[in-house]
């Protein structure tokens, strides 16, 4: 019923509202992810990336997947608390997009962030330890799954308010231009965040001031249980960029190399001082919204999920690398074994790490130390 309702809100009536030819729902469009994708030969498709680089990308995809599978296990065992939002099925987006960055560039995203954090170079152990709430975590246990940070790696979090990271990223892009630095700011948001006022305000300022900002919408079609077409009167997110006279592009979010290709153009433009770009990466979440949300049943059918899983970005990329003789099935399996070990070791590291010391409770609220109860009014100290 959820789905009839979704479809209902999304057929004729909906199309009529949109002055745009493409179908109203992905379901009606078998070619949804690939809608705007150019024809390329397998070789062209490799974007001229070196075999090493191409293998690194596969390594990163596998690590993201295995790491989160491990995290899911630990969550089930109660070793991880709070909310935990997995990226399984969407890996091609962050991994393809971050591969388009250089040293010194910045990344910021929402709460579905484990893979972004790993991709920015935070040690798997430090990411897992953060999930465990340990002192060795990348936020020393203060942040958890939704608030990972690494100043050293230019990974700026990890934010829990839908759309809240966009103005923050705008500020980082502002700083880059202010200091005339050779950097780019990349910010990620789910498609549901596009409806927030913060999106509108930020994109206007980014375009008005030509800031080096790359805005990547991870369109996995759902905001929790709400299908995009039930939340937006316009289906094509990339078209929203026109309201800001901002260039935009659509990427196949299940094809890591297509994400790389599209993002690379935007990153180069930003670096050249030509301003921001809006990228819609069309992807799908193979798991529930968070650990408490069933994979399917309420707002999407089992069939839909199964069908989407045929587009598993890892399988798609594995085929690309096989077809082009960059990586054999054997090598792939060896790589997979290796990253499984890394995830395993990350869990062991987290497990064996100490809890934060009680003193940490009152540390880093402010830069200053408290002066005789002037800062903390709880009368506890």
């Amino acid at each position: 019923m959820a789905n009839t309702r979704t479809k209902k809100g999304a057929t004729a009536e909906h199309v009529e509202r949109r002055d745009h030819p493409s179908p109203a729902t992905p379901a009606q469009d078998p070619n949804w992810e690939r809608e705007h994708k150019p024809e390329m030969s397998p070789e062209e498709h490799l974007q001229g990336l070196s075999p090493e680089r191409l293998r690194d990308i596969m390594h990163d995809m596998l690590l993201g997947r295995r790491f989160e599978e491990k995290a899911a296990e630990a969550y089930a065992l109660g070793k991880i608390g709070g909310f935990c939002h997995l990226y399984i099925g969407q890996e091609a987006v962050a991994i393809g997009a971050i591969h388009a960055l250089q040293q010194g560039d910045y990344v910021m995203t929402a709460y579905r962030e484990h893979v972004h954090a790993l991709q920015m170079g935070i040690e798997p152990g430090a990411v897992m330890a953060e999930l465990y709430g340990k002192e060795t975590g990348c936020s020393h246990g203060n942040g958890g799954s939704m608030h990972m940070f690494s100043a050293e790696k230019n990974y700026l979090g990890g934010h829990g308010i839908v759309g809240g990271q966009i103005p923050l990223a705008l500020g980082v892009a502002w700083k880059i231009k202010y200091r005339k630095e050779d950097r780019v700011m990349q910010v990620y948001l789910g498609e549901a965040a596009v409806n927030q006022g913060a999106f509108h305000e930020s994109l206007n300022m980014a375009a008005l001031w030509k800031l080096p900002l790359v805005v990547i919408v991870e369109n996995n079609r759902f905001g929790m249980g709400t299908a995009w077409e039930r939340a937006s009167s316009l289906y094509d997110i990339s078209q929203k960029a026109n309201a800001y006279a901002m260039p935009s592009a659509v990427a196949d979010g299940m094809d890591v190399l297509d994400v790389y290709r599209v993002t690379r153009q935007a990153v180069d433009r930003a670096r050249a001082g030509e301003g921001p770009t809006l990228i819609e990466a069309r992807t799908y979440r193979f798991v529930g919204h968070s650990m408490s949300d069933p994979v399917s049943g309420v707002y999407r059918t089992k069939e839909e999920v199964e069908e989407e899983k045929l587009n598993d970005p890892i399988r798609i990329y594995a085929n690309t690398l096989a077809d082009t003789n960059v990586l054999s099935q054997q090598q792939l399996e060896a790589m997979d074994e290796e990253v499984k070990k890394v995830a395993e070791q990350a869990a062991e590291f987290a497990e064996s790490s100490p809890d934060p010391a009680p003193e940490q409770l009152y540390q880093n609220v402010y830069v200053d130390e408290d002066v005789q109860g002037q800062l903390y009014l709880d009368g506890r100290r």
Partner: protein
Amino acid sequence: MAVITYRDALNQALAEEMERDPDVFLMGEEVGVYNGAYKVSKGLLDRFGEERVVDTPITELGFAGLGVGAAMTGLRPVIEFMTWNFAYLATDQIFNAAAKMRYMSAGQFKIPVTFRGPSGAALQLAAQHSQALEAMYSHFPGLKVVTPGTPADAKGLLKAAIRDDDPVCFFEGEMLYNLKGEVPDDDDFVIPLGVAEVKRPGADVSIITHGKMINVALQAAAKLEKDGVDAEVLDLRTLRPLDVEAIVATVAKTNRAVLLEEGWPYGGITTTVATLIQELAFDHLDAPVLRVTQADVPMPYAKGLEKLAKPSAELVVEKVNRVLYR
């Protein structure tokens, strides 16, 4: 009387009020197809249809304002915030529009909107998702603020809030949804706003609190009983209107008070209550009024740190012993 959960009590209140008044509708994120992020609206979409149980885009400012506009022209909206942590985005519509519209128009409009949702810290949700903000909302004249701590209060007060002709901010305890308790079945079981309740009578000291913390207060009272201290627990239930008489009465009875709240201390509810006590019951006081609140820090994620940050029965007992000079 049936024993049901706090969640079901709220669900009943919503269903009964929607049944009773066609102008009542429920709007918010995931309230419909998903049956509510916390399942408070379970079954309401099927029962009342898409017109009256409305899933919104993620636009807190927009749909909060929608509720105010609909209320000023005759509807009785119930606007759900998935949690109150996200409602900062809507504060302009709540504080500048809802709270002031009736006054600015000199009474030409009623604003019978109810803003509701889970509040306070659950388990390890970290700084942005663990905030108890009822004090911030109580600051504003024009708003009413309600914080039920039991299933019965949840039902009776939500029905009162929906029927109330002023804007009401209704804070549900995120950790209370599964709490069970006796709830009258009566369709017209309504608890008037502004009436506190003694949840445990006692003679030696008053523990004054509201919402989720009444359970912490009752635990503390139980511990104290073992030490031969007879604590009275007063549940404010509504913070605005505030039952000042009940506050003064309990202090006049015990001459000692410890105030407890889930939120932060600076400008917390406990500061207003302490101020009123020392002003209105000065001569009754045998000791200063002491308080227990969240540690004055953003909520950390790690389990151990979170536990330290939250108010506890132990901390209450410690303060009680201090006001008893033991």
